[in-house]
């Protein structure tokens, strides 16, 4: 895995850059045919900073410490590609939580709009990334994130506390 400096050097010396063609992200390197790539976070739940570019076969092409490691003109493309790939709703407010037959039904406001979901077995389906950062997985596998429990309003925190 390349470090930040190595990545920057690689970009500066070996990579002509990223572009978007017909809805696909394409990496052009001198002397090579342009290749389609996808952009991922190395650690999508615990640290959304390091970025990896994968080729069509899922092999690592390039690793960067963050979007700032990319040339300015390509930063926007990377940011947009990440935004399109990672659709993890962030819970902004908990309206209420009902418990029926051991299943917790959450009514929430997220950064992607209002939603309700069912949560079973919090011990298995709630990941505590830190003491205040949690990711919930509902009964069909959708994930919802609370990046900072303490940033929620008191009523929402109370609902979460009662439920979990």
């Amino acid at each position, binding site marked *: 895995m390349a470090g930040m400096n190595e990545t920057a050097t690689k970009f500066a010396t070996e990579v002509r850059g990223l572009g978007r063609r017909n809805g*696909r992200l394409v990496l052009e390197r001198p002397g090579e045919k342009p290749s389609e790539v996808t952009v991922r976070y190395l650690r*999508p739940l615990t640290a959304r900073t390091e970025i990896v570019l994968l080729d069509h076969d899922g092999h690592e092409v390039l690793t960067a410490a963050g979007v700032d490691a990319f040339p300015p003109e390509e930063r926007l493309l990377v940011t947009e590609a990440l935004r399109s*790939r990672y*659709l*993890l*709703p962030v819970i902004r407010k908990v309206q209420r939580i009902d418990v029926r037959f051991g299943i917790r039904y959450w009514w929430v406001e997220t950064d992607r*709009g209002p939603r309700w979901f069912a949560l079973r077995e919090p011990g298995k389906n709630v990941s505590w990334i830190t003491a205040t950062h949690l990711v919930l997985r509902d009964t*069909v596998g*959708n*994930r919802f994130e609370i990046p900072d429990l303490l940033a929620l309003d008191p009523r929402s925190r109370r609902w979460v506390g009662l439920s979990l």
Partner: protein
Amino acid sequence: MTLLAPVPDALASQYPPGFEPAVSVAGDLDARGRFSPAWVGAGGGRVVALAEGMDPVDLSLAAVTAIRVDELFGASALVAVTGDADHVLALFSRNMVSEFAALARILDDLRAEQSAWRE
């Protein structure tokens, strides 16, 4: 599961006049991944996709070379490929996986049928 879902009211104004789908699925995410009505229908040799925040997609199935489902982080995308271009027909959450898996198979069959007619 319904494979003949009506067009959501919020998207009715985008519906192309005269289009008669043989199969259609209502989605739950818009083009920006927000929880919002979306709709994909196919019939008469066309596939039409409607969602808030994006221009309607209206493709001839004869021009579609592949249909695929991309697994994203937290959602999936139904994609139609025409030549070198990808067209995202819909984003959908895991709640809608069964419906869109079925739709993808049907679209692929319809696409192959159109391709056979062309040959």
